[in-house]
């Protein structure tokens, strides 16, 4: 079990490294505040829309890819439609709220998932 967890972290770190390299070469700079930026909400949105339960134990990689596409289209679409920045944030937060509420209704916490720990 332990080796699987270590492998998970290693793979995640390598992917993050690769993504960092790509963004750094694209704009020849790096935003040092990226770790504390509101990007985390987009990530949660992707994960929850991809059907991964926030209480753990449910979901698949393919669904997350679909979730990523969905959010990508949403964000790009809002830019293309020239929706005002503050309104964009409201829309994103409403979708996130709805997703989390639905997730807790569809995937309620039970004895098994409770032991997996929280996000």
């Amino acid at each position: 079990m332990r080796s699987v967890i270590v492998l998970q972290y290693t793979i995640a770190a390598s992917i993050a490294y690769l993504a960092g390299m790509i963004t750094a070469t694209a704009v020849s700079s790096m935003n040092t505040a990226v770790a504390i930026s509101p990007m985390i909400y987009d990530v949660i949105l992707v994960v929850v829309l991809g059907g991964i339960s926030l209480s753990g134990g449910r979901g698949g990689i393919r669904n997350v890819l679909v979730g990523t596409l969905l959010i990508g289209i949403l964000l790009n679409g809002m830019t293309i439609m020239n929706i005002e920045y503050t309104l964009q944030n409201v829309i994103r937060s409403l979708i996130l709220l709805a997703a989390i509420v639905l997730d807790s209704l569809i995937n309620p916490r039970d004895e098994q998932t409770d032991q997996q720990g929280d996000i």
Partner: protein
Amino acid sequence: MALRQIAATIGLAASLTGLAAYALAAGIDDPRRADYFKDLAGKTIAFVPVTMGIDLTEGWASVMKQQADRLGMKFEIRDPHFSADAGAQAITSLIAEKPDVIVVHNPDIQSYAKLLKRAEEAGIHVIQINMRSNYNSDVYVGADWIGIGEAEAKAVIDKCGAGTSGKIAVLQGQPTSGSDSGMMKGVENALSKHPEIKTVANVAGEWDATKAHAVISTVIQQNPDLCGIVGFWDVMDLGAAAAIKESGKPIVLVTSGGGEQMACDSVEKGVFYKEIAYQVMDQGRDLNDMISTVLETGLPAGKLKAVIYSPQLVISKETLRPGLCWSASALKK
């Protein structure tokens, strides 16, 4: 008799002149000098930037620290690193610690407004730098954003008139910030006289080059005949420049910023068509002067209400010359 009197007068006059010359040679003490140093020594200046590690805040901090060191003042920085929450906490704890002056760089016009009022009620002078809050404290030192927005839009309009699509995009930083609301007003002012220019996108890059790159890529895909972009901060606009380069289209990018060496290099390379700059080193000097002014005048906090707008510096291929920009890396030496 008369001759003797004249001689005596001349003699007296000559000796008085001699005395005066003697006094001048010895030097005269300036009665205000001692008070100046005494008033300022031991005072505490606290600086709450949006974040350290960017050219603007590093520049201001280094100029303020020089004066603080010279005059025996304490200068401290509370860096909230782009978090308005952390910044609000920093100001709250500063109100309790009671420094003499807080120099604050607001992330937006609302977040700190009540706190700044409380700080002045507690007797702390508040000086706002470059990004103002809804609350007008003792002093605002910073760019004239409306003027900069007008100048930027005019530069783009000049390039996007007849013979082009006339389509432009506005790349804001954080639309709720004091700088963006002002620049946007300036852009609107300039555009109102040019109905032939069409704003096809008004997007925000959150001061982040990566985000700017992503949104401007999308805007260019949607409007392949885009003519110009009005960017609100040079560091972020490098992302927009990268998106323009990837598209391979001759889109005009005008930006504004602190006039750091990066700006001059980018204008020289043609990455930016123009930068309407506010000079960070001069703003630092303005901050220093206002810090000593609020402390010297002895006015209670919140009474002064002064505004100092920084003059505009246009960085373009025509105005480029060595020494036009300042260097952030040289500050560390």
